[in-house]
């Protein structure tokens, strides 16, 4: 699918939200391409939920604009929200309603027809049988409520899914089911904008990540490009004692060294380092793949630009 001709699923321009002296979100600019899964990362209080709530017109911006499929989120809010399935971080459900009542009610006000077969498929995939759906929500566990939240977001098969911490409270099996749901949604051309704390999850399901720190976007990158920002961990084992060379190629940094073992962090290509090693009695070489976690933690901790 040629996505470049399509308007972005989400387009955010200079979005800012202030609460008195506190700036919760500062001049956010971001495009989410149709059909992609974008992971929205950040520590607690970084502004992820604020950005999501601004898109849904739950919060009013201090300045800036946002569009969903080209519709202004505030001036054409109904048209914008008509295309959205939303899972909030905390589900505010009335305990005296049954699961089915909640789904019927939310499906009814969505203006998106709910295909009964699709809904049944969701019940099956997330293992929420009708016997549970007919129970009052006060009898639901946290995980069951989360499943219900996912079903209400996915049930009308909307073109854009906005998910706030979608796997919070789900057991590992259900997390797998959710990843499958996400994969299917992506295959059908749906766009997903999801916030998460779980980096392994983001690494697995997202095409790109946007990283917020203290209300500001500090990283927007594809998954592969993000990983390239992280150092690879390299361990070299020698047959005999060797001396540490006075100069290493750029991007190479010793973590630890002993006469027969070196531990290094390497950013960039390994070629120059292999040239150095070619002159030494190398017994073995281990290269650990760069991890997204290292990039993200680096941004969190060091305040990298």
């Amino acid at each position: 699918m040629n996505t470049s001709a399509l308007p972005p699923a989400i387009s955010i321009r200079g979005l800012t939200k202030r609460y008195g002296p506190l700036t919760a979100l500062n001049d956010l600019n971001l495009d989410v391409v149709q059909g992609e899964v974008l992971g929205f990362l950040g520590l607690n209080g970084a502004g992820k939920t604020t950005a999501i709530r601004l898109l849904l017109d739950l919060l009013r911006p201090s300045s800036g604009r946002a569009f969903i499929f080209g519709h202004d989120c505030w001036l054409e809010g109904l048209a914008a929200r008509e295309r959205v399935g939303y899972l909030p971080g905390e589900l505010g459900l009335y305990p005296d309603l049954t699961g089915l009542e909640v789904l019927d009610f939310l499906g009814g006000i969505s203006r998106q027809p709910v295909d009964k077969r699709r809904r049944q498929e969701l019940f099956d995939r997330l293992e929420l049988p009708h016997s549970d759906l007919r129970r009052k929500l006060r009898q639901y566990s946290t995980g069951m409520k989360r499943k219900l939240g996912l079903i209400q977001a996915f049930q009308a098969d909307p073109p854009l899914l906005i998910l706030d911490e979608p796997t919070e409270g789900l057991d590992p099996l259900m997390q797998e089911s959710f990843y499958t749901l996400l994969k299917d949604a992506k295959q059908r051309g749906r766009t997903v904008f999801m916030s998460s704390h779980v980096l392994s999850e983001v690494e697995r399901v997202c095409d790109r990540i946007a990283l917020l720190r203290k209300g500001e976007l500090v990283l927007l990158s594809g998954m592969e490009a993000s990983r390239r920002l992280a150092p690879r961990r390299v361990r070299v084992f020698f047959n005999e004692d060797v001396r540490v060379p006075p100069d290493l190629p750029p991007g190479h940094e010793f973590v630890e060294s002993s006469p027969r073992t070196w531990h290094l962090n390497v950013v960039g290509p390994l070629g120059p380092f292999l040239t150095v090693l070619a002159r030494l009695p190398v017994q073995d070489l281990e290269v650990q793949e760069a991890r997204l976690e290292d990039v993200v933690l680096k941004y969190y901790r060091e305040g990298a630009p």
Partner: protein
Amino acid sequence: MTGFLLLLSLSLKRARTLLIATGLLLAAFQVLLVLIAGSIQRTGEFEQLAALLPPFVRAILGPAMASVMSFGGIVCLGYFDLAIVIALLALIIALATLPASEVETGFADLILARPLRRHWIITRTIALVLFSILMMLTLMIAGTWAGLATLAPEGAQWPSPGMIGSLALNLGLLMLCWSGIAMAFGAACRRSVAGATTGLLALTALLLDLTGRLWPPAERFAWLSPFRYFIPFDLVMGRALPVENILVLWAIAMSGFTLAYFLFSQRDISH
């Protein structure tokens, strides 16, 4: 419109037990009042009962005392008994602050993230309040007439339908007025704050009205109290409900609703 109807039906469904229970209790109380009034009527003790009233109550009742201390007056007591009025105001304040509760619980997130305009939440709440007021008054009137038809002693002078209607209208308007005030607070504040503030305001207004009736210097401020336009004693004496009273209570309610629409449209939905 579909969203509004679904929202209203959900709210009615959730409130139905409370509304039905309260309405039936009120109806039963009306029947009980007829029974009590009939008992006093048979023994002819209305004058002795009046003599037992403390002086400040007599002062508040004023010239209406004879009318209140009659078969018809006792039968109509439910429409202005302080405990009933306070209970009904508490009920209506709870219903009118529903938007605040929906914001706090996060339910509003789920609703408003869908293609539903914010004003439908306020419109639904007004419809819910109106329905509840009508239901309460209808059941009270039904209880009154059921009691009179089955338990009133022969020869007892029934209150006229016009009097019952005026009392119900005046009570309904008082409830509507306080629902408007509660809704305006509930559109901008937390439910506990909105409920407590409206409750305190209602208590202050009630005391202001009573003080005005008992202490002439306070009379010039008493017009500020909505209770000043709730005149059951005059109605029990057979007077008509002045249009001015209807308009004032109606205007307060409408101002509250308008303010609620405005405040809710401007606020951040965050909990």
